[in-house]
């Protein structure tokens, strides 16, 4: 996408939704629009229905967690990325809606594209971001009863013990005694030891 085309697109959206666009950038021909999350529906509707725009297909809706990111593009912790494609002009545009941690919710775009239903459920499942107005906001990948949101950067990779919290089919097979003894896998114990060592070193160094 060329610079003048990007400016044209952003100009049209600013015209349609005056406070909708916070920022935009063009990097290696890829247009990214940072939109206000409260106006995200209006911005996306303008991109879909606006004259000369016609971004009619939501290729993907994705979540991002910028926790401890070295160069976060905005102050908010989360972001929802909408990747749109225009079938007519074969242009692509990325719309980002920053989401703060203390109010992790975004209007659902299922009213615009029912395709977004499952992708929004996935983001809810893995990031814990709520989609207001979603018809069926349930977990889609993790099982019922799972409590956390594992793609959040502060969720430990090895989990919180969910993977070892199952009933055994019997209590009298040889490995059962071993699994009773090991609360976590040996790898976890090693990790704990290495973390403990680092802590000791830090304490020793003051």
């Amino acid at each position: 996408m060329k610079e003048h085309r990007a400016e044209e697109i952003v100009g049209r959206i600013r015209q349609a939704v005056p406070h909708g666009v916070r920022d935009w950038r063009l990097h290696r021909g890829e247009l990214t629009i940072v939109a206000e999350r409260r106006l995200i529906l209006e911005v996306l509707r303008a991109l879909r229905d606006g004259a000369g725009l016609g971004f009619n297909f939501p290729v993907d809706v994705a979540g991002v967690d910028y926790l401890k990111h070295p160069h976060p593009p905005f102050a908010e912790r989360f972001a929802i990325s909408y990747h749109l494609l225009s079938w007519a002009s074969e242009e692509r545009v990325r719309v980002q809606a920053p989401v703060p941690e203390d109010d992790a919710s975004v209007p659902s775009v299922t009213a615009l594209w029912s395709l977004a239903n499952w992708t929004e459920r996935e983001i809810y499942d893995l990031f814990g971001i709520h989609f207001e107005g979603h018809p069926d906001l349930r977990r889609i990948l993790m099982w019922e009863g799972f409590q956390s949101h594992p793609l959040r950067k502060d969720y430990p990779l090895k989990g919180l013990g969910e993977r070892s919290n199952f009933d055994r089919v019997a209590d009298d097979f040889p490995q059962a005694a071993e699994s009773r003894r090991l609360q976590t896998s040996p790898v976890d114990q090693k990790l704990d030891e290495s973390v403990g060592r680092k802590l000791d070193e830090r304490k020793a160094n003051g």
Partner: protein
Amino acid sequence: MGLEGHLGEGYLTTRAADFLNWARKNSLWPLAFGTACCAIELMSTMVARYDLARFGAEVVRFSPRQSDLLIVGGRVVAKMMPVLQTVYRQMPEPKWVISMGACASSGGVFDTYAVIQGVDQFLPVDVYIPGCPPRPEGLLEAVMRIQEQIEKEKFGDYHKDKAEPIASAPGDGRAGRSELQQRWAERRAEVDR
């Protein structure tokens, strides 16, 4: 010899356990619980080049009610574990379990929140096969080990899961979720500081 002299031709005397074991070990009905690339090696073990039929175990059924050898091939995620346990419980006694490959035996390289770090924590496993994935020879070896095990079985050995399944309760050695969560939180807080 004794009895056979009286019975005439066409009869063979043996001990009942030996006879049952001989029949069972030469007619294993595997249930292929293949969830990853191990299942591909499992398939290649079945076909002409390696031919598991030579050991009497060629009839793979995806029905636990008609199987007596559970082959867990591939990583098992936490969402799959209750299914695997149900499959195991549905199999009629006597039954045996092969844990095929690194993932089924230990989680393999997938040391993440979702992957079970060894199905033997929750299922009685008889034979483990190392490898990622193991070659068909490995699976053949495992089936032969199972056969050796079957030869030694006695009457009354067959009720491996007669005990009631136990629920996770505080104090049984397995940390509860909140306990683990608290431990992680403490660790994290200390590291962040």
